Structures are given as structure tokens and as C-alpha cells.
């Protein structure tokens, strides 16, 4: 973690596109440590896609990679996601 580390707020646009819903206020439960955080508040790493990591145990919560035509989503690290209905 350094001064350039972003958080899930900066992934709002990508998540909105993938899930067709506002996701930064959604509460995610980390499958690694059980901590619950809004996706906006967790760590964001960007490269070929986006990776969200738990700020408590650093486990990967969610990965999204897009190539323009297709989207790959890996949700293994999230036990649950809770959104306002």
C-alpha cells in the first residue's frame, strides 16, 4: 500500500457496467477473514482489469477483466454481497 493505492470508489464505473447496479455502497463479506466493508472502501488494484482486495487480510475479493467484447468476473473471495433492493 502506498500513496497511489486507490479504493473501490474509483471502480464505480466498471462495476456499474458489469453488474448494472451501483455497487460501491454494497457491503461485501470477505471469504478470507469475514470482514464486512462497502466495496467503495476496499483496496483497488488496476492492470489488465480490476482487482478488489480486503483492507484487513489483503485477500482478493473480486476480479473483473474486460477485452471490449467479453467480461470475466471472479467472485470467489466474496462470501456475500448485500445491496439495497
Amino acid at each position, binding site marked *: 500500500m502506498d500513496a*497511489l493505492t486507490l479504493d473501490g470508489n474509483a471502480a*464505480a464505473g466498471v462495476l456499474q457496467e458489469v453488474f448494472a447496479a451501483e455497487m460501491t455502497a454494497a457491503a461485501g463479506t470477505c471469504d478470507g477473514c469475514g470482514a464486512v466493508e462497502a466495496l467503495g472502501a476496499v483496496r483497488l488494484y488496476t492492470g489488465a482489469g480490476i482487482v478488489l482486495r480486503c483492507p484487513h487480510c489483503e485477500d482478493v475479493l473480486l476480479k473483473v477483466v474486460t477485452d471490449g467484447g467479453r467480461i470475466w468476473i471472479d467472485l470467489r473471495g466474496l462470501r456475500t454481497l448485500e445491496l439495497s433492493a
Partner: protein
Amino acid sequence: MRPETERVKTVLLDVDGWQGHRAGQHVDVRLTAEDGYQAQRSYSIASAAEDARLELTVERLDDGEVSPYLTDELRAGDAIEIRGPVGGYFVWDPTVEGSVLLVGGGSGIVPLMAMARERASDGSRVPTRLLYSARTWEDVIFRDELEQLAAAPDGFEVVYTLTRSQPPGWDGYSRRVDRDLLAEVAPPTDELAQAFVCGPTPFVEAVAEALVGLGHEPQRIKTERFGPTGG
């Protein structure tokens, strides 16, 4: 285009069909080069929903891919691709009663400014205190407007801390935001309803941790790790 400080400019955009936004939300700006290479960054909206134009206040990062284009190359009349508004976590909820604390470090002031502008434009009297940490007085963005907002008798206060150098006769704070400083500036735990903290990651982590240490409920503290955003 409006210059704010040496490194910061505000880009004013006319957006067809803009449906308004909530204070604290962002837009994603996407630039596409002639060879098809694309770069995308997220920028906080600085303007209030009622303002005529969408304003993005951008700090120029020398090695950035997007911010130097926005601050140096963009000209009036140019078109850029944006997506938004997006975000629903770091947003001001004007219906919540109780005191509000805004804590901004550097260009982390931008989404907090949207909240201050929204508050003023709504005629809200919710007690709101902005703690703004900048390196020098010259680095303070929105200086004149913040002075005007603070002068109105509607419960909005601004507290500055200048961490690197201070102008002659400076009577504000001159140290990093720490627990002692927050103990002096933050409302009591039973009055604080919402806190918004935005700035570089170490700043945000230190402030959020100190607020929790002072007894404020973590759920009331919203954070955004912002600038410099590699942009």
C-alpha cells in the same frame, strides 16, 4: 477551463442530457488515441447538481496519462468521452440530521467541495466543518469560494492546516492531521452524524483510524482514497 492553483485546473463541461448527480459522485473520463489505445481515469465531480455545467477539478500529475491532457491540451469546444455519474458510497446524504465533518487532504478536497456547494445551494443549515490539509496557502484549491462559504451565517466552517509552510501571521494549524488535531476540530461523538475523508491513502487511513480512536462509529466515516490518483 479555470485555473485553480499552479497544478490544478477545473474543466467545465456541457453534457448533453446530464440528469444531475449526488455530491461525492465521480465520472470516468476515457481518452482514445489515434491508434486506438485507451486510458481511463475516475474524477470526482466538483460542482453541485444545480450548477449549469459539470465541473471536474483535476490535479496535473507529471507522469499521468489523462490528467496532463485535461489540464494542458484540452481546449474549449473539444469533446471528451465520460461515463457517469457513478458511485453511491462516498456520497453526501442531505436527509441525515446531525453534524457533518469533511476532512480533505490536497486534491481530496474536490468531492468535499461538491458537498459544500450542494449544501449551500440547498440552503441547508446542517452544522458542517471542513478540515482542509494542504502543503502551502498557494496549494489551497477553491480558496476564495471557501472563504465566502465560511462567511455565510449558515453553519459552515473551514479549518485549515498548512503542513509545509505558512504565510506571515498565520493563525491556523500548521501540522499534519492527527488524533489531537481531530479531537479539537471534530464534533463530539454524539453530534457527528457523517464524516467524509478524502485524500492520499496514508492521509485517509490516519484520519479514519484517529476518528475511530476518538470514539466515532466506523459506519459514520466514509472514506475515499483519492489523489494523486495515477491519472
